[in-house]
């Protein structure tokens, strides 16, 4: 995802001289080509995220689109007030890019587990939140984000992730959810890089004769309400999956809509419970420990259907 993002950004920067990238002293390898091609438009803010985001707001006010790049919680939690007050409130074209949403930096420990960012970013009024599920979705939403006015948040995974979509996502329009697989017994709604696990869960369920629809939401906010309402109307049970706390993020957003529509469809949220991680490990290991890998999702879906 990280590489797809960098590729699209490089392409857009070549077309538009008013695009500037600010990094919080990270992204050495990923941003190398951008640094070589556009040295005047790649600014290193140092390890100073609050100053970085305020600076981005001021720079954007001079008629620029400014992307702010860092990893995990760094571009979100530390400069949260700068995002809210200086960027979103002033309606400037600042794009906050987080590489390493969820357990991407799993071995590095709790500080590097970005597991509340979606809930927090979603709560800011007028904030747009992109949550692509694979490199193809990343390409589509990055183009959209760069051309969209206002402050946006982009939550990426890392480099070298498997593709879920076979080719590019063609004809995607903001903020549409994408059905990857048809099904009639249960729907698995996925948000972000956990998409591979949602698809694997559907495959496992199919082996047991359970037909699961898989829908990816590359945009958390605004949420594709038409799709959510359609799913709530078509299924008796749906599952939400996110590499994130189950409080206030994607599952929370779907539940808010479910409660308001009163469809009678039950929602089960899969993600991190109200706890900090207590062990470290690679991304897939932590997904297994915290019950959000493909196998665990399939088992939870099966049990949920029996309830």
């Amino acid at each position, binding site marked *: 995802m990280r590489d797809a993002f960098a590729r699209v950004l490089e392409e857009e920067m070549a077309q538009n001289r008013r695009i*500037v990238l600010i990094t919080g002293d990270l992204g050495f390898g990923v941003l190398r080509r951008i640094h070589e091609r556009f040295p*005047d438009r790649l*600014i290193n*803010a*140092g390890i*100073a995220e*609050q*100053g*970085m*985001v*305020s*600076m*981005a*707001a*001021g*720079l*954007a*006010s*001079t*008629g*620029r689109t*400014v992307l702010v790049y860092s990893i995990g919680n760094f571009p979100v939690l530390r400069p949260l*007030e*700068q995002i809210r*007050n*200086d960027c979103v*409130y*002033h309606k400037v074209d600042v794009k906050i890019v987080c590489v390493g949403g969820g357990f991407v930096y799993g071995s590095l420990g709790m500080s590097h587990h970005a597991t509340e960012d979606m809930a927090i970013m979603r709560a800011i009024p007028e904030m747009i939140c992109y949550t692509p599920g694979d490199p193809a979705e990343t390409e589509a939403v990055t183009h959209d984000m760069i051309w969209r006015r206002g402050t946006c948040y982009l939550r990426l995974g890392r480099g070298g992730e498997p593709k879920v979509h076979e080719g590019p996502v063609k004809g995607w329009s903001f903020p549409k959810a994408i059905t990857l697989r048809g099904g009639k017994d249960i729907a698995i709604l996925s948000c972000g890089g956990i998409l591979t696990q949602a698809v694997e869960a559907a495959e496992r369920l199919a082996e047991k004769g359970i037909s699961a629809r898989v829908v990816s939401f590359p945009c958390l906010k605004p949420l594709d309400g038409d799709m959510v309402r359609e799913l709530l109307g078509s299924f008796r049970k749906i599952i939400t999956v996110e590499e994130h706390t189950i409080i206030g993020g994607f599952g929370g957003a779907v539940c808010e809509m479910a409660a308001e529509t009163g469809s009678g469809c039950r929602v089960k949220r899969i993600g991190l419970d109200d706890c900090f991680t207590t062990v470290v490990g690679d991304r897939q290991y932590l997904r297994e420990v915290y019950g959000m890998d493909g196998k665990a999702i399939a088992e939870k879906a099966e049990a949920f259907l029996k309830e």
Partner: protein
Amino acid sequence: MENYEALVHSGFEGKPDVRDPKTLAWLIRRNGLEMTHLSRGSHIGSVLSVAEIIAVLYTSVLNVDPKEPNKPDRDRLILSKGHAGSAVYAALAETGFFPVEQLKTHYANGSILSGHVSHKGVPGVEVSTGSLGHGLGVGVGMALGAKMDAATWRTYVVLGDGECDEGSVWESALQAAQYRLSRLIAVVDYNHMQSLTTVEDTLKLEPFEQKWKDFGWNAVSVDGHDTEALQKAFAWAKDNAGSRKPSVILAHTVKGKGISFMENNILWHYRTPQGEEYDAALKELEAIRP
């Protein structure tokens, strides 16, 4: 209130000369007193300390035009100590950006003139602040944008001394020096008091001038109530464009300046002037009318 403007301008023959920094500073004090009185608002002490700084900026320094508040080559002013917002509102209204009459709505239900300075719907205000430690960073971004465009306009940021407790101020100070933003000019309203007690007894800033120099800035200290000294300091800061460093003016001021019982009295960070205190304050201001 029948006519707010007539009230604050009473005693002047005709319209006050708002091009004169001493007159504008007095009007900032007079409006600040009236606005905090009417609204039962706070922060009058900070408004009184920053009055000359804001007055000199609007009379002698800033390239801004009330008829075209968004002209592209205007200088940008950010009031980072947003709680002194009524000083900027008063300066803008008195210099023609919006009607003086509108100042009476400050703090009121439904008003756009919030207690901390706000840009939404208020001509001449660039940035909304209120939470301290944001303005210098936004100013760094503006000055960087101007530099990238090879534009000649400048960015001015007015900070509080207590505000310099915020770590973000020093992140932005490092960044401004790193990017050689010589058209970024900061002014600290150094009134030596903050919310609960003195700066000295809270988090010491001294040696303050040296700190800024150590962070890579040109720095100078002046009497922040002396309009001629402030004019000279701004001229010095503008002349520093070739130094490839940002510049800061440490303007030594007195919190509550101009009203004896408010001067250096921490009470007036929050207290609102009412009753006999309002009358006494008004009388003192009348005595120093230019």
